[in-house]
């Protein structure tokens, strides 16, 4: 499982990375490995607002669909429009070209409460142990 030192994670397998005064959001390498062959990503509209933990979209494979939840409260400022034509970017580069949305956080301090790589690894290992 790949981690990225510039992001923090949620227990529901999303990540957020501060960039300027906004945050980039995506799903983790572990999440994408559990959702092979992503064929569609349903994203919100720019301007939509969400509170932390609220579902903002869906990642779909041929036989499964997983909801994705915002790591921080805020307003959507941009979408990764490349995913419309090439949703497989989520599988190929989950921390880079496979990003999902940009958020303007209403409380940037929420980021500090997210999991660092070490804590997130424990969450994933506990989840794997359950399977």
């Amino acid at each position, binding site marked *: 499982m790949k981690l990225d030192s510039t992001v923090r994670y949620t227990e529901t397998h999303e990540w957020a990375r501060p960039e300027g005064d906004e945050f980039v959001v995506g799903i983790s390498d572990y999440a994408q490995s559990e959702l092979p062959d992503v064929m*569609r990503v349903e994203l*919100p*509209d720019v301007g939509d607002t969400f509170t932390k933990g609220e579902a903002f979209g869906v990642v*779909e*494979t*041929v*036989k*499964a*669909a997983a909801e994705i939840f915002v790591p921080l409260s805020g307003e959507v400022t941009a979408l990764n429009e490349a995913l419309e034509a090439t949703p497989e970017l989520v599988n190929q580069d989950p921390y880079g070209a496979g990003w999902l949305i940009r958020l303007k956080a209403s409380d940037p301090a929420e980021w500090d409460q997210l999991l660092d790589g070490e804590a997130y690894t424990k969450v994933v290992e506990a989840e794997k142990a359950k399977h």
Partner: protein
Amino acid sequence: MVYIPHTDEERRQMLATIGVERIEELFTDIPEKFRYPDLDLPEPVAELEVLQELQGLAEFNLNANAVPTFLGAGAYRHWVPAVVDAIISRGEFYTAYTPYQPEISQGTLQAIFEYQSLICDLTGMEVANASHYDGATATAEAVVQALNVFRLKRKKVVLAPTVHPLYRAVIHTYTQGMGLEIVGEEDASVSLDDLIAMVDEQTACLILQNPNFLGQLESLAGVADQVHARGKGTLLGVAVNPLSLALFTPPGALGADIVMGEGQPLGLGLNFGGPYLGFYATRTQYVHQMAGRLVGETTDVEGRRAFVLTLTAREQHIRRARATSNICTNQGLMVLAATVYLSALGKQGLRQIAELNYHKAHYAAARIAELEGYEVGTARPFFNEFVVRCPAPVAEVNEHLLDEHEIIGGYDLSQDYPAMENAMLVAVTEMNSRAEIDEFVEALAEFEAEE
């Protein structure tokens, strides 16, 4: 003979497991006096006698296949070739459901795939699902799809008053509690231009029917462009009579976003009102918002042509509450009937049937228009159904037709459109011979003379 396989011992164990002694204890919530009511039933009789009794009762019915019928309004008496029943009755096919382990039933999936392809050809659309229950549910699903395309942010729906009244009722049932604003249907005299003018940027869709419930053909050229432009992407959904598409330009070729309707005219018979078939087709860009099952073509590990249920992540067994629709089933057997019907007739055969409908209906309309006291609404083009203004309430005319001539008359439009007093919707299909039509016309003339 007892058909219940449980032994007394098994029953005792089950009762012990749930902690009661006697089965009667399960019914303590039902007041005693209602628990074992005396049923006033006659003595048992032999199977033969039951059959004779029921046949006697059935003979009180007038058989729609044995008398001249001019009733349509959404359900039509058409010819069903014998091959339809012969194929669908085969054991391999005789179920209404797509199998729960679908890919093991390649024949069923192939039949549905062929059906989807035929519906796309007929409607001029890009993708069709494996069907809904009937024209009403298919039309309601069109509204739901449009709402989902706009992620429920658009709350307005423009609904033509000439969409089948039952379809409109089902749309209201499906969407109740969603806080929608459904406009357009209040005034039956509203024009298509008026309806288009109601479309704004909050409008998810405009739903029309063509031919509309009154049998008239709408002039659809350019409508889709106007709707898309006015509403910045508002969807146009058109409910159609599939048979009419053999003669007229399908809405798909005119830019409609969803084309759906009642598949009953495609070889299903009247069936006492059901089972029928809702067909449904849309553009590929909306496939993820479309409800229902979808069969796709692929190749198996050995490179052979194979069929699968595809894009199932839209469905409720995977997506639960957020599914595009909570209906994942379809009318499998009726789908097969329509597929056999369309395949047996072919493109030319279907066109011939449609032409017969068109010409016979126009012959009937012209003859009725000559009658004293009757007025035929032929100002607008029509397919196989038209409105006749009668000299008296339709119920009285129909009673005369039935009692004096054993003819089943048309549909009383005042039931749904109070302003349309004495208006009868008359349907003529390939089943109505010229002699039947002449008899109908003479009976109408006789009614007027006796008035």
